[in-house]
């Protein structure tokens, strides 16, 4: 019994990081109705960013997170101008294809450079023991940092002028333009933020598990599941969705091999989409 509870708690700790990644995806969707298919590649980019900062430059793992965040923001803004800007207002097919193509280029470059070898970042933190079960220190730290980053995002969106501008554009772009908000720049910032969140959550995941260049696909699927749980376009919902997904994964781990998780996730995804097309948390609004 303690084993199952420990597994669930651990699942929730890890799930909160998935929630952070999904916040990036859902933020972009909420502001500009674009599904960012570079999401998985950006998660992997964050993993490799952390790997090279720690192994090549000797930066401590958690000190490497701010540079990953900043570079992710810059890359995201650049990507917006490269692949997304011309797709705003066109059929969703086009933005899906353009972000998908960037994703291919990044994954292609990654596999050409590093193949599909397993990488690992060593982080040693003392864990917490509880009834003979140990919660790894890295898992606890990742969950705490996720809470911190989510809090910072909340402060940005609700307490700063720029963040309020992002929310205004998300609500009604024409009206925002009319009151003098430079909406195009705000869109590029929002895309940058979404990508930065994906990168930093990738870096956090890299402190938990080993990874390959192709790991993005599986984590991207997790983000999709989390966003439909929380409702597309709702960052707070994404965090709760992530925790819910972690709970499900934690509950499943003692009973079946880990390699079955994508199947469970996918079934959950389909079930939620069919039963609650607006996401579980959108029920209140309707």
């Amino acid at each position, binding site marked *: 019994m303690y084993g199952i509870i420990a597994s669930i708690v651990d699942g929730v700790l890890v799930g909160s990081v998935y929630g952070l990644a999904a916040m990036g995806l859902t933020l972009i969707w909420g502001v500009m109705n674009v599904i960012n298919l570079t999401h998985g590649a950006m998660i992997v980019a964050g993993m490799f960013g952390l790997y090279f900062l720690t192994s090549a430059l000797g930066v401590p793992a958690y000190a490497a997170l701010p540079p990953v965040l900043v570079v992710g923001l810059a890359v995201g803004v650049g990507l917006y101008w490269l692949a997304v800007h011309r797709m705003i207002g066109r059929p969703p097919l086009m933005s899906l294809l353009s972000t998908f193509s960037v994703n291919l*280029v990044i994954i292609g470059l990654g596999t050409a450079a590093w193949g599909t070898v397993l990488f690992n970042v060593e982080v040693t933190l003392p864990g917490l023991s509880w009834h003979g079960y140990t919660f790894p220190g890295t898992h606890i730290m990742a969950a705490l940092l996720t809470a911190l980053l989510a809090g910072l995002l909340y402060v940005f969106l609700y307490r700063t002028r720029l963040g309020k501008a992002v929310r205004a554009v998300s609500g009604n772009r024409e009206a925002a333009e009319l009151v003098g908000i430079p909406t195009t720049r705000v869109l590029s910032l929002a895309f940058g933020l979404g990508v930065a969140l994906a990168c930093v959550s990738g870096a956090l995941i890299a402190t938990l598990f080993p990874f390959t260049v192709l790991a993005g696909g599986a984590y991207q699927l997790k983000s999709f599941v989390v966003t439909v749980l929380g409702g597309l376009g709702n960052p707070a919902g994404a965090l709760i969705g992530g925790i819910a997904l972690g709970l499900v994964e934690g509950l499943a781990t003692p009973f079946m091999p880990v390699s079955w998780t994508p199947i469970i996730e996918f079934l959950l995804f*389909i079930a939620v989409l069919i039963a609650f097309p607006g996401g579980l948390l959108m029920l209140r609004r309707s």
Partner: protein
Amino acid sequence: MSPRRPFFWIIALVIAVFAAAPLVGDNVQLRESLLLAAVYMTLASNLNMMMGYAGYVNFGNIVFFGLGGYICVYLLSAAAWPLLPAALAAGICVSLLALLFGLGVLRLRGAYFALATIGINEAVKAFVNNFGPWGGATGLYLSTELFAPLGGPRQALWTIYFLLVGIMGLSLYLSYAVKSSKFGLGLLAIGQNEDAAAVLGVPTRRYKALVYSASAFLPALAGGLYFFKSAFIQPVDAFDLQFSTEAIVIVMLGGQGTVTGAAVGAYLYEELRGWLLTSETFSSFQLVIAGALLLLIVLFMPGGLMGWVYERWPRLKRVLE
């Protein structure tokens, strides 16, 4: 579709050229390259019905091909079925599965559906990796004795080639038939504006599920034959991201929504790929090149090759569908 339209005979001519060209001088190298082109054409024309007509990107289109391959190889090796019934059974099974999945998932619109198709690729791959009877991650191997009923390996390769060319031809005729039917008009209406189509009485959900299922049949059949030819199947090959991506690139390159575009795009892409593979610098950058090509098309030439041709010679629109 009617034999009185020139396009009907253009397709027939393409099939005849594909069937006859490698026979001249017993050209095995040409046959292998045309075989791959035929597979690309099959995948692209069927994806085009989803993507070009109904406006739904199916990122998981390779699932049909891979699952078809698995079912066919399994029936051949475990149940000792002859090739043709096994391939047909694979096509029918995958088509039915697609119909069930489509009825459930195609209630979802636009972006949600695209997410579901990416998910299904990951989920099916994970399932096959864990599924004992299908050999898990190591896959299934066929003994070469299975080539015997087709007259030995040498003759069998020719037979499979002709069968695949036949499937390619059927794919082109299917795309053409759908496009010129009421069903196809309904799909094109869904692609332009789903709400308006529904108001005008197009049964959007049923049509979407039907086209999803119809676009599964021939790729599954082709998958069965393709993996019979290679005599083994592994999850990595069967659900290759590359193949699925290439089909999307091809449809966009040729011009989405056109039968000719999907075919010409497939042929051009196969030539390009063959050239890239032989060049050492480029062979490891295939995915990068496919991605960059797709980005350029989406950004600057969303109509693809056929869009450009139609603009230049508008009268061709009436001949080349």
